[in-house]
């Protein structure tokens, strides 16, 4: 899956984002291929979140094109745009759950809005999504304020998955989680990717997530983007990228990952030989 002769479901071409005199992106190109997990990294203020917001239409770029599922997203009428929006889900940093609704009702918002489902079926679908993201059964009736940060993120993911989208956008999904919760979340995303055939566009600061689940990494440097597999990026000679991956934290994450792979391999081999 890391080789991707596949179809680009999102193509961003020549994006320029300018806020006042500040240029955040200057002629940025990026393709997202079907079925991959793409990690977006970059320093604070390098415009990772702005890029995500530009692709999902929350920020109109100063220049450039965003092509989603083969059609120009910026030139679309409202109806077509809604059709596209049904095919993706977005998880915001703190979940962005509607605070006046319970978790289950949050998940039901898009179901009710787009498909006018009977209440009982919506409850059933919401219960499945709650189970899928690993929340306990009774979480459905709780309000967002009653949940911990990690649970809010899971609930936000459940809402993003409500319509079974083809692509999910995750904005720093593991930020603010403890290491155990963060690696659980990584595992959840990679499980869902394989069972639902998701494409994942993930903005992250978390080196462990990058090594654990990303097929390709896009690094925002010098207002542009450099994309490649993790191996390619590890050998990129841009000073910032070098510092990022080969700093103390980057090194630690690499070691952790290779350890884990070894362990995982031995686990897979054992039952096969038995």
């Amino acid at each position, binding site marked *: 899956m890391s080789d991707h002769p596949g179809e680009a479901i999102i193509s961003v071409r020549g994006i320029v984002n300018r806020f006042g005199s500040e240029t955040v992106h200057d002629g940025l190109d990026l393709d997202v291929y079907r079925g991959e997990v793409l990690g977006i990294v970059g320093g604070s203020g390098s415009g990772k979140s702005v890029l995500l917001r530009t692709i999902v239409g929350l920020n109109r770029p100063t220049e450039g094109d965003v092509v989603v599922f083969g059609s120009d997203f910026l030139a679309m009428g409202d109806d077509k745009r809604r059709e596209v929006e049904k095919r993706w889900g977005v998880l915001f940093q703190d979940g962005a759950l509607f605070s006046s609704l319970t978790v289950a009702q949050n998940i039901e918002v898009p179901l009710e809005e787009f498909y006018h489902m009977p209440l009982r079926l919506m409850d059933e679908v919401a219960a499945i999504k709650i189970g*899928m993201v690993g929340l306990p059964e009774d979480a459905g*009736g709780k309000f967002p304020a009653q949940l911990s940060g990690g649970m809010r993120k899971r609930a936000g993911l459940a809402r993003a998955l409500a319509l079974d989208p083809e692509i999910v956008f995750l904005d720093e999904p593991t930020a603010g989680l403890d290491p155990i919760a963060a690696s659980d979340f990584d595992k959840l995303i990679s499980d869902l990717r394989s069972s639902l055939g998701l494409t994942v566009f993930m903005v992250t600061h978390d080196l462990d997530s990058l090594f654990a689940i990303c097929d390709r990494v896009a690094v925002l440097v010098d207002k542009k983007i450099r994309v490649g597999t993790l191996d390619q990026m590890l050998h990129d000679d841009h000073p910032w990228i070098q510092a990022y991956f080969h700093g103390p934290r980057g090194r630690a994450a690499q070691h952790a990952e290779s350890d884990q792979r070894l362990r995982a391999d031995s686990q897979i081999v054992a039952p096969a030989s038995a």
Partner: protein
Amino acid sequence: MAPIAATLAETKDAGSVVLAAAGEWLVATAAETDRRLRALEVPAGSRVTLDLAGIDRIDTAGAWLLLRTERDLSARGNAVEIRNLQPSFAPLFDQVRAGGILAPDAHPRPAHHSLIGFVARIGEITLGLLGRAYRILGFLGLVQLTALRLISHPRRLRLTAMAAQMEQTGVNALPIVGLLSFLIGVVIAYQGAGQLRRFGAEIYTVDLLAIGILRELGVLMTAIIIAGRSGSAFTAQIGTMQVNEEVDALRTLGLDPIEVLVIPRLFGLLLTLPMLTLYANLMGLFGGCLMAWGVLGITIPQFMRELQYSISERTFWIGVFKAPFFAAVIATIGCYEGFQVSRSAESVGRLTTLSVVESIFLVIVIDAGFSIFFSVLGI
């Protein structure tokens, strides 16, 4: 996009039923397929085969519907078999089976609608109110103790903060308090004149105006405006600090939040509200005076003379006397609700509204209490 369609064909033989699902079993078609699956009638005890060979696309909702049908039919004693599940859909089915089937109706909505629910709710609200009154009383005591301690150590009073509060709650409120009091004066004079003219007693409009505004309306209007303007600001300011953990930061720095945040607001308002009341009284009388001149032809010297006959100093003092009590209520409630804010931004809004409603309510209740008190004393 081609129209999405999911089909379900039913073939019945003796003792066995084959359900052939085909097409696109997606969330978009789920409402329709759900209806059809629920309407399905399968003879008890027959063998059921779910044939999934014809399915082109399927998502969680579709998979759930099929798995639910399997579960429901087996629960009714049918032997159910799923056949021809395409291997590429298998992980999805596993995921849904793992996540969903255990929790079919995990979240019944809260039952407000039953009679018991209604009674329970009334009980809950009553207990909540009593609890809140108790806690507000506790807070009032805490503030009083702090205030007494500070009065005995006046050097610890934060005069700069107090002056800033007085500017915000007093000076900045002058335009709105002035305008509204002026208009109230105009309205009372106009309405009073209309009624009193019928008895040829127009001149008593001045008495009505003077007593109405000085005893009651001047101070009441000012208190209500300040509750809406400054009481809400107190809650929002302290509440925002609470959300940012600033209040906790104060505590860890060894500062008493009551001393730093509440006392300047309370003392500031205790001083400004009487002054604002005086100003509101003047503006109200001024408005009434202009109106009396315009409608009744009562000239300004006439008005002044009548004013001197009709009221004593006491009328004025009774109004102003109430102002510090109202100020204490507004500041206490405003600050108390601010401290009640939890760490969510949503609670700032909720408690700000609550603080305004509570303080206006209490201001009016206390005003009514004073009326009774004064009438018993015969003042």
